[in-house]
């Protein structure tokens, strides 16, 4: 077998292991998928009626009221789902790195990349299951995407790229953490970022300072792109910005994570 076949075989083995671990420890996944659902219910049913009145032009054509706000906020809730799910990535990576089994892997002639790729692939699957659940709940509540097949594929592509970026970031945070407790806290800022973006209200309504931050942070262009693809609002340059942010975060985090992985236990 060639190096590549070994890498694929070992990564598949590690993926299988991580999926099995996730299945044995379902409470974490359930907790992380519950959070965006609770925020969606809160924002749609508590604030939604009032918020939609002020949104006006920001709502997609033909949308109004509570249902209109649900259609406005659902794409942002999907991104929040990703942000919450990757907290689990940081936790399981830290669990692995602080446990004894990582030393066993390191003394075996296995493809070096497989430990991290196994975690990343398992997290992608876990996150997309969470996304499917949250999307299902949103549709049950009345979310009505207008996307055609091409739009759906593009939306899945944007979500996948952004998910990969956040997963690699969470992997790096999990590797950098000295303990599992730290690893469960450091990625929490990711779940706050949607609130400081155009996910819940347009950035134009925010005070100066916060508005600039909200406009130029990654969650806003990704939210706008996803909202455009799913509900038909204008996308403009947001797609390019979303792809640039996602690739940038993914590449930087990948390099950081592999650096930490190689350096860790070097003492």
């Amino acid at each position, binding site marked *: *077998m060639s190096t590549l076949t*070994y890498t694929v*075989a*070992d990564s598949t*083995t590690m993926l*299988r*292991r991580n999926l*099995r*671990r996730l299945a*044995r*420890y379902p409470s974490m996944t359930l907790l992380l998928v519950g959070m965006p659902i609770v925020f969606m219910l809160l924002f749609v049913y508590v604030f939604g009626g009032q918020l939609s009145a002020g949104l006006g032009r920001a709502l997609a054509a033909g949308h109004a009221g509570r249902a209109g706000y649900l259609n406005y906020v659902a794409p942002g809730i999907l991104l929040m789902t990703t942000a919450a799910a990757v907290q689990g990535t940081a936790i399981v990576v830290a669990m692995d790195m602080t*446990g*004894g*089994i990582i*030393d*066993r*892997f*390191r*003394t*075996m*002639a*296995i493809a070096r990349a497989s430990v991290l790729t196994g975690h990343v692939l398992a997290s992608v699957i876990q996150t997309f299951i969470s996304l499917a659940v949250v999307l299902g709940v949103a549709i049950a509540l009345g979310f009505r995407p207008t996307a055609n097949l091409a739009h759906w594929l593009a939306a899945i592509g944007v979500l996948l790229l952004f998910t990969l970026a956040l997963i690699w970031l969470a992997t790096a945070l999990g590797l950098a953490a000295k303990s599992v407790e730290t690893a469960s806290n450091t990625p929490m800022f990711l779940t706050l970022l949607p609130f400081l973006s155009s996910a819940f209200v347009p950035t134009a309504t925010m005070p100066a300072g916060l508005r600039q931050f909200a406009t130029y942070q990654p969650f806003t262009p990704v939210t706008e792109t996803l909202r455009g693809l799913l509900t038909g609002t204008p996308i403009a340059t947001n797609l390019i910005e979303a792809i640039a942010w996602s690739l940038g975060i993914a590449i930087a985090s990948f390099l950081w994570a592999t650096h930490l992985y190689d350096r860790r*236990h*070097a*003492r």
Partner: protein
Amino acid sequence: MEPHVSGPAPLAIAAAGVNKSFGRTSVLHNVDLAVGEGTIFGLLGPNGAGKTTIVRILSTLIAADSGDIQVAGCNVARDPDGVRAAIGVTGQFSAVDDLLTGEENLRLMADLHHLGRAAGRLRVTQLLDEFELAEAARKPVSAYSGGMRRRLDLAMTLVGSPRVIFLDEPTTGLDPRGRHTMWAAIRQLRAGGVTIFLTTQYLEEADQLADRIAVLDRGRIVAEGTPDDLKRQVPGGRIHLRFVEPELLHAAGRALETAVHDEEDLLLVLPYDGTVAALRHVLDRLDDAGVEGAQLSVHTPDLDDVFFAVTGHPTTEATPAP
């Protein structure tokens, strides 16, 4: 009997001039090691002596600052994957996946060794039987006892049939039965031609298992040889006589010239070679002096004695290993 060939026996581990520091703390000084193929080598030393650091260097987990190290014919620095393909490591801390079952842990190892489906399944079943884990095979490891975890840990190390095995304090924390099971497993491995490098804090363990022993003190090898070589350097055992009154201690001390007094603990310590005659001699002298009311205990040589003999100072725990 193997035919004796001329020249040195092939070495499974050869290390020369190994140094290692963590920051400004020097942990290993010029360590040399030579472990013959198919032998058991015991590295004996107290906590903090650097035993685990040596295992981590030899098993490619960390790099030495300097020194030339060959394991299973491969250079640790230049061909770590060559080393990894030939070794198995059971560390001090359990390296099992708690969320998986025992069988799944072993299957994971079989898959990572690319044994293939049928051969992997066969090897897993065989190891589950061999290590008396067949009944618990489908239970999650989190429900295993300490001894079972240790056995699973070693079984996982053996899935890939390694030629050189590192065992870092394999019996620390085990009960006597668990310890004897582990010893039997280690002896069986050697019988199969595997080279074993084990670390231990117990002279008895090294004595029972190892063909050669090296004593590690504060990062230096201070003695090396067969168990008999080492024990020859130890002044044998001791007899302790404990008294309840200082007058009795002094009377006994006058009767036994070779005794060392410990006034504080009202204790007399005598060198003892393990013979009945020597013991009778001590008792006779005590009778002659009319000393009664002493408590007598006999101590066989332990790590402390070997240490004292080869280093001139008792075992002291350095800063505990991380």
